[in-house]
């Protein structure tokens, strides 16, 4: 009898251990998380008959055009190792594309080409100037309205670009302070925005023959973003504005009087970040607001019906529309969730049919990914701080090693959705904690302003308070909290190591800002008008030297006491690579364990697979030694 019991016990044990084996999450190779697709940047021809995308074949990337009805298609370019930065249709027959010349300086040559690959012409050579397209419709079937800084690298003038011969004729000369130009539905240049760096002024004219006159001046802390001209009344524009309120709203604005006419959608708790105008219906379709994820409020029923139908076809996913034809019948959209990078689809509104184009990343299986949960906590001064917590799969949410992942800045934020970096870390067994610290966008202008000049100050406190909150809930193991970030995220990570001594077991910084002076110095010449604004956000290097020195890790190497991982791209123009090397040297002289990784490509945007793999493998090893095994 006893022998029989023991036999059963053994079987149960064996089953249990087998179960546990299954329960353990598979370690997914680094590359799988970040895999780039071979088909990206889907676009539709204006008549909705052709589908175009950038197709990667080997190392070569070309524009590929496909007949939607027949499925027949071909490459229309042959670019060798050059990349296409951006492209769009200008007519049913022609496309314009930007060929990359220097990625670091965002310089490109601009070409126009027929949809069958013929008649390729260069419209602009890089020559250090940049070209922005103001309106992607052709005027008189040959003119394109563009802005360029070819006259003066610091200002953008408006030109009428003849796509037939490449001639550029100035349409409006920038007096020196115009930072943006807008056209109306007919492609007429009737709105401009000027800036003295701190204040933005909206300039308006009734007709192109008139002179611009100022209608509204707002501080850079305010948002006033024109979305579209009203179809019926030429002096009315729709804009997203938070002038005189904390949260942005969609408003109707009278350019003649400079007054807000009405609130089209507004809420004390919701912050409108985007709005969609339908050219076909000549109406506003919906507004987008950000809570813990992007949500839509529909301004007319037919749009609501359209999206309801989509929700039925793609349940429990978020969808984004990337392109549509002029008739608003054919759409290109992408679906995604936090655990699924999603797929691209072609959607036919008239039939309600959905055709899958490609997966965003077919290596990712939803079941192996981790849920990204919105969380919030209260900071020491009473502010509600939102964030996301991603827990590793099949593990009890207790006493976990945590990687705090502050986002880049200034003015950025984390949003719900598939994030390969977060999923990579969670797959390696870490709880990943993202915090939308003060200064992050999407929570109203007070929240953004609360972060001004608080680098190394209250921003750091928010991160610290978040970690304490996580520890108090027994999710985090207080001895195994690490911090890692890119850009300003790296800055926060390094700051955390010496401003909150003992909180973090280690810190990793990728292309991190280590010196605020250098950061201000690196602002490119064409952004010089904004310098005063950067002084307000970051700090004034002339009057606040002490505070900025306190906040810059480079000056504080004497206070570091934990292992550091520093990665940098030595060709990154925003950074002074010599300073980072000096920083690493100074740390090493003090006997701090420093892992230093240098690359010449671009790890942030994931173009260089080899260096990206190296970076994440090193990060994994660094965290494994300094965090997990502690």
């Amino acid at each position, binding site marked *: 009898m006893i022998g029989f019991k023991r036999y059963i016990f053994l079987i149960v044990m064996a089953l249990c251990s087998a179960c546990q084996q299954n329960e353990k999450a598979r370690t997914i190779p680094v590359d799988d998380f970040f895999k780039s697709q071979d088909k990206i940047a889907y676009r539709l021809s204006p008549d909705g008959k052709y589908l175009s995308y950038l197709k990667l074949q080997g190392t070569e990337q070309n524009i590929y055009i496909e007949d939607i009805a027949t499925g027949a298609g071909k490459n229309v370019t042959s670019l060798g190792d050059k990349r296409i930065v951006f492209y769009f249709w200008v007519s049913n027959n022609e496309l314009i594309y930007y060929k990359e010349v220097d990625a670091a300086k965002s310089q490109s040559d601009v070409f126009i080409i027929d949809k069958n690959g013929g008649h390729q012409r260069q419209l602009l050579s890089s020559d250090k100037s940049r070209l922005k397209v103001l309106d992607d419709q052709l005027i008189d079937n040959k003119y394109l309205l563009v802005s360029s800084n070819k006259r003066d690298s610091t200002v953008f003038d408006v030109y009428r670009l003849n796509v037939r011969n490449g001639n550029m004729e100035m349409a409006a000369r920038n007096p020196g302070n115009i930072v943006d130009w807008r056209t109306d539905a007919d492609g007429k240049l009737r709105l401009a925005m000027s800036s003295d760096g701190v204040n933005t002024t909206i300039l308006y004219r009734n007709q192109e023959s008139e002179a611009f006159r100022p209608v509204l001046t707002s501080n850079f802390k305010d948002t006033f973003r024109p979305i579209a001209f009203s179809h019926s009344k030429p002096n009315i524009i729709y804009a997203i504005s938070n002038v005189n309120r904390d949260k942005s709203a969609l408003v109707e604005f009278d350019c003649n009087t400079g007054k807000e006419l009405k609130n089209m959608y507004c809420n004390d708790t919701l912050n409108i970040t985007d709005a969609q105008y339908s050219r076909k219906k000549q109406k506003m379709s919906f507004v987008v607001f950000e809570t813990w994820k992007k949500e839509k409020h529909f301004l007319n029923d037919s749009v609501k019906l359209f999206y309801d139908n989509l929700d039925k076809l793609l349940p429990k996913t978020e969808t984004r529309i990337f392109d549509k034809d002029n008739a608003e019948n054919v759409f290109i959209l992408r679906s995604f969730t936090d655990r699924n990078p999603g797929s691209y689809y072609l959607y036919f509104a008239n039939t309600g049919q959905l055709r899958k184009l490609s997966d965003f990343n077919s290596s990712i299986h939803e079941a192996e990914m981790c849920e990204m949960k919105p969380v919030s906590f209260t900071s020491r001064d009473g502010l509600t701080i939102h964030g996301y917590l991603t827990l590793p799969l099949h593990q009890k949410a207790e006493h976990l090693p945590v990687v705090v992942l502050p986002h880049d800045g200034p003015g950025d934020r984390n949003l719900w959705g598939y994030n390969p970096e977060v999923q990579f870390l969670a797959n390696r067994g870490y709880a990943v904690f993202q915090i939308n610290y003060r200064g992050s966008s999407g929570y109203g202008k007070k929240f953004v302003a609360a972060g001004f000049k608080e680098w190394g100050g209250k921003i750091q406190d928010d991160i610290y308070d978040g970690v304490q909150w996580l520890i108090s809930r027994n999710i985090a193991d207080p001895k195994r909290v690490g911090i890692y970030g890119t850009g300003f995220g790296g800055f926060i990570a390094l700051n955390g190591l010496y401003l909150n001594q003992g909180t973090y077991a280690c810190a990793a910084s990728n292309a991190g800002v280590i010196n605020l*002076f250098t950061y*201000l*110095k*690196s602002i490119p*010449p064409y952004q010089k008008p904004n310098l005063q604004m950067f002084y307000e956000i970051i700090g004034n*290097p*002339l009057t606040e*030297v002490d505070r900025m020195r306190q906040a810059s890790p480079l000056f504080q190497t004497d206070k570091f006491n934990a292992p550091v991982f520093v990665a940098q791209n030595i060709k990154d123009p925003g950074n002074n690579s*010599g300073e980072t090397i000096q920083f690493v040297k*100074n740390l090493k002289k003090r006997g701090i364990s420093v892992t230093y990784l240098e690359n010449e490509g671009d790890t942030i945007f994931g173009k260089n697979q080899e260096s990206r793999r190296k970076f994440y493998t090193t990060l994994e090893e660094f965290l494994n030694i300094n965090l997990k095994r502690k």
Partner: protein
Amino acid sequence: MTLGKKGGYRKNFLLILTFIGLMSVLFLLSLGLAYRFSTKYVENDFASEKVNVLEQSIKPYNDFFQKKLPEVSYYNGYLDSATASHFVDTVQLEYPFVSKVIFYDSEVGNTPVSDGLNIGKFSFGPKNIYQFGSLVPNDSIQLFSRKNKRSFVVGDDFNALALKLVSYLESLDTTHVPSQDELFSAFSNVRSNKITYLNIPRIEDLKIYKEMIRKNLDPKPVYQQDMLSFQLDPYKIKIINSRPKLYQFIKIQPLTYDPLETSEAYLSTEITLPGPFSDFKLYFMSSKSFLDKEIRSYFWPIALAILVFYSILVLVAFLIYRNLNINQKMFKLQYDFVNNLTHEFKTPVSVIKIAGNNIKSAASLTERELGMYGRILDEEADKLNGLMNKLLAFTQIENKAIELNRDEINVHDFIESTVESHRLKHPDFNLSYEVSGFKTFITDPVLLGSLFDNLAENAYKYSPAERKKLHISARLIKGKVVFRFTDQGIGIPASEINNIFKKFFRIQNQYNQNGSVGLGLAFCKELVNFMKGEITVKSRVNKGTEFKIVLPYND
């Protein structure tokens, strides 16, 4: 024979004397060498350790040069007089050899400057010049400004580095990222007692600077550059004497310093300081008597080691001498034994010879004579045979050449037969015995018999005529067989009691003038040992002796 022995002793003595003599010479020689070695070593150290002193003393300067100086660049040209002053304060606190700092708050641009450097369309000139330092009076901190030039001339320091910057820009290859070292050397100027450093701009800015030499850029760009000129005082370098026992005095002296009155009593050496201090040197001086202490500190341990080594050698020599001495005594004993044995053999041999001669020379022998000679020959041959057997048995036992027989014997009968045979031999021998506790035991009867015979023979031999008595007792005590042989003989003096079991040992007295070889008791001991037993002796002079034999009881 005696002479030979004496000669042997004398030879040994001479050898020992020579040995000790040579050893002493060697000892003194090695001490001398050790002392010379220590002196040389210390002198070498004196010449070579200065590098370490230099290295440690100059470490703060290297730190300043490698760590603090680049900090100027961290400000990216944003340094103003207040921050610069604060920066200089921290520098002076940490690095006392920085005596004064001149701060050139400068601009790079396309507009020509009247003070500064204009090359092509590139201009580089100071906006303001300040000086900071603990000895700078408050009213003369600002030396120069564009509005108020006072009488200050921008000067050599600024121009030298500005020229260096321009020539670097001229040769700058904009397609490559310049290395840190390259930049550092281009943006710093090290001269005598002075380091001038210009903040290193970003590579992007350098490329624009290069362009600015050739053409006017639009709009006219202006870049901030901070140049700091650090005046250094070499006398404020803190000397770290890492070998205070080696160097009595270390001073910083000009390179030309060479005192005339270098007396014989002092040892000196020097090493030039690096970088901006290259006009100065570290001058090291120690008196000879000061160095002697250091030399001794090296010498004593070596001397001690030599002494220990020498002592061990002498000890070994003594032990060898002692062993030789013992061997010599053994040789003497063996010699005596051979002497005795020869004597022992001689008597029966001469008796046999006489008997043989008598038989040969006699014309006829009577019946009585025949009987007598026959008996004599037989007895003497037995005697010889006995002697030879004894010798043979002893050698065999000593070499463990025989094997132990194991027979059961009746103790009573065994002792009875021994006693009987001795009574027959010596009618005046009064023998008695007792047995208690056991009746039989297993042993080798031949060996045991031999043991009994020897002890009984000894008891008879070493007893005065009136007290020839022996009492043998056999008992079983705690699982062991114990035999006691108690006589009332002459006894053994306490001083000799330890020697009686040694080979060839005989106590010199009237009882053993003849017929004894000194083998008996040694033989007994060997026998008992062979039988895995023990033999001990208790004795009082003129009262008697008791031998106690303990044998294992193998039942």
